[in-house]
């Protein structure tokens, strides 16, 4: 603690938690102002008399209860809006603007985020429109600010997943502006900093992204939001990985892996650890961490998340020419997508295998894989997936298969609506 300053928030917390360092105790002695504060804290209850102190809780609880009740009442209406947004039909016209409806729409945006980010964005936009129509006199200013900030934050999250990073940054600006108006703004601003860091990471602006994660992490720690600290640290490690600093990333992830984490957080840590260890050439450890992560993902019912993370690892192995480890893993992932009857992903994995086999000079093996798939698809309704597999097969037969063909087929598969 710099001697020229008074006790910081964190010093105060250390004092309350009974772990003050020497300089804090010294300062407590040498600074009358701080000594008075610490005395008052130590001899609680204090003599400060504030009439009707309970009124603060009552007012806060009352306004929260009102919004919660609106949330219950507007659930059906919110579901109808989300359904209309999902199928692209006209929105119900009789919507009653309420803070509860905004909260419901934001909840839907969060739920849809990983499944369908475009729908999540439409939900957040709908929340934004309801917010504009809100009778503000009915609510506390602070509650409006939270809703505005959260709406823009959800928009930023969805825009990131849709690859619209610059727009995401503008949404972050708007969210920060709303949160800044609040008396208790720091935890909300830290959440914005986290989202902004994820956007900057995608834009390869790695240094500012890292600074923002450190900022967010410091605030989350000060506010006792431990799980958020873990998330910020995981994000920091992914930024470092992207920056080619696998050693530092591994160190952060290993520290995190020692903590008692929520199962899904542990799975993400192990997953990132597999990439970090791979980058420093420990293929065995990478596979081990990845397998551990996959088990947790499966146990938690996040099978797809697990499969996608193993798939990323397999692709990394392939790009680093670890063929012996990559092919069995890719084949296993392909079989698991097949078992789940997710044709697009199964075919995309097949294209990865095809590309790898071509690089290694095994077009025949690639053709056998395609034939097996075509035989299976023959009994199903025609769709774009078998057509692409057939295109791959005919390219092999005519000896015209190249990396460019594979890339083109992959692109076709990815742009076709599911």
């Amino acid at each position: 603690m710099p001697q020229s300053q008074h006790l910081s928030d964190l010093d105060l917390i250390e004092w309350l938690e009974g772990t003050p360092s020497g300089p804090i105790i010294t300062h407590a002695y040498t600074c009358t102002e701080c000594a008075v504060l610490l005395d008052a804290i130590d001899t609680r209850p204090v003599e400060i008399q504030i009439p009707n102190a309970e009124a603060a809780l009552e007012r806060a609880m009352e306004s929260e209860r009102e919004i919660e009740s609106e949330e219950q009442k507007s659930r059906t209406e919110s579901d109808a809006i989300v359904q209309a947004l999902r199928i692209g039909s006209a929105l119900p016209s009789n919507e009653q603007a309420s803070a509860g409806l905004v909260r419901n729409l934001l909840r839907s945006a969060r739920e849809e985020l990983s499944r369908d980010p475009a729908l999540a964005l439409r939900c957040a936009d709908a929340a934004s429109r309801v917010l504009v129509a809100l009778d503000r006199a009915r609510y506390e200013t602070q509650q409006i600010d939270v809703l505005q900030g959260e709406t823009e934050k959800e928009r930023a999250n969805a825009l990131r997943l849709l690859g619209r990073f610059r727009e995401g940054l503008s949404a972050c600006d708007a969210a920060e502006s709303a949160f800044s108006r609040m008396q208790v703004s720091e935890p909300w601003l830290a959440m914005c900093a986290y989202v902004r860091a994820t956007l900057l990471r995608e834009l390869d602006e790695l240094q500012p992204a890292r600074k923002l994660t450190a900022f967010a992490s410091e605030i989350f720690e000060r506010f006792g939001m431990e799980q958020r600290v873990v998330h910020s640290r995981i994000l920091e490690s992914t930024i470092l990985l992207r920056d080619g600093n696998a050693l530092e990333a591994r160190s952060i992830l290993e520290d995190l892996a020692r903590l008692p984490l929520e199962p899904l957080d542990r799975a993400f840590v192990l997953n990132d650890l597999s990439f970090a260890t791979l980058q420093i050439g420990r293929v065995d450890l990478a596979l081990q961490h990845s397998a551990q992560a996959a088990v947790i993902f499966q146990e938690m019912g996040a099978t797809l998340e697990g499969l996608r993370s193993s798939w990323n690892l397999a692709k990394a192995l392939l790009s680093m020419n670890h063929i012996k480890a990559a092919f069995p893993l890719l084949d296993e992932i392909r079989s698991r997508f097949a078992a789940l009857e997710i044709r697009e992903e199964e075919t995309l994995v097949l294209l990865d295998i095809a590309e790898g086999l071509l690089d290694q000079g095994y077009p025949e093996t690639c053709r056998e894989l395609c034939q097996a798939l075509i035989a299976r698809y023959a009994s199903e309704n025609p769709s774009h997936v078998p057509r692409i597999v057939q295109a791959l097969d005919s390219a092999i037969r005519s000896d015209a298969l190249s990396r460019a063909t594979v890339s083109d087929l992959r692109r076709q598969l990815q742009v076709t609506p599911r």
Partner: protein
Amino acid sequence: MDVPAPEKAYREYRDLMMTIARRRFRIPPDHVLELVHDVMVSFLRCRNQIQNPQRWFVGAICNASRSWWTARDGEPHFGEMTDETRNLADPVGVMERRVAIGNLLATLSERHRDILDLHYLQGYTAREIAVRYNTTPKYVAKLIHQGLRRAAESRKPSDATIATSF
């Protein structure tokens, strides 16, 4: 650490929040309640994300108090540094301070003297002293603080001293 229900959290942390707002940030009594209310609104909204409520309430009331002053273009912190604090920034004064502390220790009870001696003159941390005395670091910290206060009180010139200095 479990996050208590709002009513329990309020009862548990209200005095702490009011103390910090009043003593640390000098928020006028009429406005303390308004800040506690703002903290509660935020708590109700994000309580699911809080793992350590004490940290959250301390952080939130500090944040709210600073915002309160900022909105009024005021000074959110304490006033000027005291002479004593300023002296601490001076490394030359460190030895003198040690000597002064040694003299002050002589005026204290044995328990306070031992603990302050270990901490200031021998460099043990509160945690290390706690292990030695088979107690908690918090209790040691309190003893240190108490001992220092008593030492400080013993340095204050009494009325008699002031009278004779004229």
